[in-house]
């Protein structure tokens, strides 16, 4: 018996085992706490944004969650480091719609790069929030949300 590799691809398993940028960021300019009350996924995303250029100079996260949420957050941090805030909002929008099945990077022009790895999640509606929590939390940090964000 083998598992559906659409969902648990090797890259996702690797990021789950050894997440990147998995630490607190001491000099964060933005941070936000995100929870997925259904699963109990619980993360904090930290960003260091250069105000003059709008470039995300550093980004990291801490917390706990399922393999999908951990890998998604890890991959998000590697993807966004060095990107501009405005561009990250575009990617958030595309990613969010992709996991909901409302945006198909196989048919439409996109800026998602290797994040298309998470396309398989659209077949598992109850798990989409696991993948999108990181992104909601990142946007919450950029918007300086004082309260925590939730997927609900």
């Amino acid at each position, binding site marked *: 018996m083998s598992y*559906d590799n659409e969902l648990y691809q090797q890259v996702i398993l690797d990021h789950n085992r050894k997440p990147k940028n998995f630490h607190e960021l001491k000099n964060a300019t933005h941070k936000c706490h995100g929870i997925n009350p259904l*699963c*109990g996924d619980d993360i904090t995303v930290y960003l260091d944004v250069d105000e003059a250029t709008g470039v995300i100079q550093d980004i990291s996260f801490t917390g706990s969650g399922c*393999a999908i949420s951990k890998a998604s957050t890890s991959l998000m941090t590697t993807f966004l480091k060095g990107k501009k805030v405005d561009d990250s909002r575009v990617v958030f929008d595309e990613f969010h719609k992709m996991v909901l099945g409302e945006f198909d990077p196989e048919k439409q022009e996109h800026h998602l790069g290797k994040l298309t790895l998470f396309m398989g999640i659209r077949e598992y509606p109850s*798990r989409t929030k*696991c993948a999108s929590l990181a992104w909601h939390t990142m946007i919450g940090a950029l918007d300086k949300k004082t309260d925590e964000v939730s997927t609900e």
Partner: protein
Amino acid sequence: MDNAEIMEKSSIDVENIRADFPVLSKQIGGKPFIYLDNGATTQKPQAVIDRVSQFDSEEYGTVRRGSYRLCERSTQLYEEARQKVADFLGAPTKQEIVFTSGTTQSINLVAHSFGRKFVNAGDEVIISNIEHHANTVPWQVLCEEKGAKLKVIPVNDDGELIMEEYDRLLTDKTRIVAVNHVSNVLGTINPVKEITVKAHKAGAKVLIDGAQSMPHMKVDVQDIGCDFYTFSGHKMYAPSGIGGMFGRMEVMETMSPYVTGGDMILQVTLEKTIFAKPPARFEAGTPPITQVIGLGAAIDYLDAIGMDRIFEYEKSLLDYGTRLLQEIDGLRIIGNAADKAAILSIYLESAHPHDIITMLDQDGIALRGGHHCAQPTMIRFGVPATARASMAFYNKFEELDALAESLRKIIKFFS
């Protein structure tokens, strides 16, 4: 007794039973469907499906509101179902059975109609650390509103209530003690009779949440002595949307209505309403008639098998499953009470419960993953969530073999 002996001594002909449940012969993705989420909701036997269908086809009418024959017949069947619930729970009279939408509504009813009347500032309410949110939040809200104090019975590392602590929590200010009979996460069977006797000695009333016990064991509310016993139909092979509670008449008579409207009154003028006696006082509006008939059919079905036999067989499933899972490295069973119902809460060092559930599903095995609406329990045991296998008398030993094999594979996959 080893697992071979446990199977040998099985008190139930499970293949015969399974033939009564159409959904159990279905396949999921080409694999046999293994349903182990009975703590969330149970499947329905053909007898219930047929009874509901027959009632809707031939006998359906409103209840207690008309004097034509269809309505009288419908009312008679509805009240017969109430009697079946009363007999099933050992209640003295059928008037002490109130139909609600389920356990959640029953507990809210008591928190509202008893709580808001008799719990005042400075009073105390006692729950336990291993309650479902349905038996936590209504009391929290009540206590906050009234300036009363919510006290919590702690549990030991096996998931058993620490009764010495309970003794200390009880005071002359305690108005009500609300605990479950069986924990939906840990499977712990709580000593509800002892809890009740002690509460009554302190002058407090007692509510027992029976959602996880009534479908799995013989319950006798007179033996327990409790004032309220709540349950959900959909967890006991009946349709969803129906449940209820036993309430001692002398206590219910002192309580005000929860929901008001039609059918719960004796007389209404524009100036004043005189409320009906229980149970009608707590059953405003047209009830879920068909669902009540389905509940009655489910009770007939359970009675025909016998609750003692069901308990014994499910206990053998629990013993068998516990033994299998204990052999798996990197797996922890959360909840190891000496007195335990057939629930196994699983925690793997290597995989999060939600990944476990998704992967088990690919093997056709249905478990629930999450906090099971019992976050204080999760916090107590230091885990964010668990994967829960909750068994019923239609489950087979072989299904637990398949679960164990699948879990081993998941551990390998993630490590």
